[in-house]
């Protein structure tokens, strides 16, 4: 198995979705390929870093626009009922 073949299977490998025989082929390659081991570690760090990205709050100007639009909508509805 080549490094490229390992890379192609990486998503399923890290998710534990590979069939046992293919998983064994990957493991065998990793035993003698430090660059692929490092590559997999950094691939997994990338996933974990992305998963913990903080959420930005709504920008104040957008919140103001939304509140104004909601108030107008409420006014239109009340006007419609009269």
């Amino acid at each position, binding site marked *: 198995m*080549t490094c490229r073949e390992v890379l192609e299977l990486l998503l399923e490998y890290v998710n534990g979705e590979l069939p046992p025989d293919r998983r064994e082929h990957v493991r065998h390659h990793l035993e003698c390929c430090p660059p692929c081991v490092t590559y997999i570690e950094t*691939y997994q760090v990338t996933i974990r870093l992305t998963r913990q990205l903080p959420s930005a709050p709504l920008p104040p100007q957008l919140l103001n626009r939304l509140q104004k639009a909601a108030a107008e909508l409420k006014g239109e509805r009340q006007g419609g009922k009269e």
Partner: protein
Amino acid sequence: MEESDKVSTGPPLTPEQVFLEHGPRVYNLARRMLGNDADAEDVTQDVLLQVVRKLDTFRGESNLATWLHRVTVNAALAHRRKRAQRQEHEIHDPLESFSGNGFHTHAVKPWWVTPEKAAENHETSTLIEKAIAELPEIYRDVYVLADVEGLPNAEIGEMLDLSVPAVKSRLHRGRILMRNALAPHFEEVAS
């Protein structure tokens, strides 16, 4: 969404609740899909006002969160089409950066960064956000929905009209591009 899905128990939501509790999620998803704050604000406003117009039909929040994901994705895709700035240039397949015999062509260095160390680091978050914004759109959408939003592949496939194998293929390529974009910033420097 079916009417029966929208109605559940609980008091009606107020516009303020919708903005404060659901707004950031809508805004962040739109911002990451569109890679642009101004466009994300427009999409967020459209989506949240759609909800406010239909507040009478929502009771409780569990179904609203799922519905918002879908509506935000659709609104972001529509906004992108309207913007007509689709990337025309050829997209390089990240799986093709190997030698002819399929082995690494250059050294793969370990990273100094760890998720634990990076959790509170603003600079790291900025680098990751920038790398996401620079992903080609076909990989970015799937990457954001899977690895930022944590949605299952089947749900992403339904939202983007893709098969599950296509979602997995795009996600894998998106992850590789992200990994390769971050590597120069995080690789250990040989002493």
